[in-house]
């Protein structure tokens, strides 16, 4: 079930969400976006929809469903 939809074309790889996630559901993947930033992946199983990633993200990557 999709809980956290990400638009990784916006991601700049700052890693704030990776550090903020209380369940360690976010990690850096191996996908590089058009701007050349290493982007994040969300483990939908671990996500608890707390919205911490949404709050700290400066580039509006996350949408909590």
């Amino acid at each position, binding site marked *: 079930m999709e809980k956290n939809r990400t638009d990784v074309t*916006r991601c700049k*790889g700052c890693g*704030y969400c990776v550090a903020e996630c209380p369940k360690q559901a976010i990690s850096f993947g191996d996908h590089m976006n058009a701007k050349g930033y290493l982007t994040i992946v969300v483990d939908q199983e671990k996500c608890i*929809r707390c*919205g911490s990633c949404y709050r700290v993200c400066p580039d509006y990557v996350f*949408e*909590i469903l």
Partner: protein
Amino acid sequence: MKLKAPERVTFNKSGFCPGCGHGVAGRLIAEVAEEMGLADKLITTVDVACGSLHLEDWHFDTVMAAHGRTLVTAIGLKKVRKDNPVLAYYGDGAGYAIGMAETIHAGLRNDNVIAIVVNNAIYGMTGGQMAPTTLPGQKTTSSPYGKDAARFGKPFRIEDAYSGFDIGYLARGALVGAANINRAKKMIRKAFEKHMNNQGLCYVELLSPCPTNWNLAPLKAKDFLLDEMTKHFPLGEFKGGDAK
């Protein structure tokens, strides 16, 4: 809990560096404006600096002011658009260096505008030079051996400068960490509410990391902000808050 960034800030990709706080500040303003139903009426003024990149990534009626004159441009707009909320968005370079006169006189007159000031302790867009807000000992492009506080002064604190003035609201938040960001959003909301009640100058300073010019990785910049910057720039409400 469903969360989606407001369309007003997401129609375009932002041009800020990775880890910059401006993106969060823009989102908080858009969220508060939409929650209060003021998004169509809000008029913003931006400065000539990194903050002006918001011209391309937020959908509000926006005036780009001359450098450092963001706050007075907003005051002028408020005088002719009395029913619209008017917000001045600028940085510490504009507020406390080139626009120091405007900052002080706006406080003296207690003009009814919202000021959102993003403080990153350096001049960001020009390449990271020493600013009045630079911390003692902080290495910048123009102070490679660290800022000498005896020679250049201590970091400028707005709550000290405004201590004798009777302004509507004065608070300082930080744009790192979910808890701080939630608190910053409440401060911005309070500023909007007081502004709509014509209570005078509503001033919110937001501490932002600048990983590019601090020469730190974004997460290290976050730690620097929380460990070092908050020693000189305490967070909280100084005037007009409910606590005092």
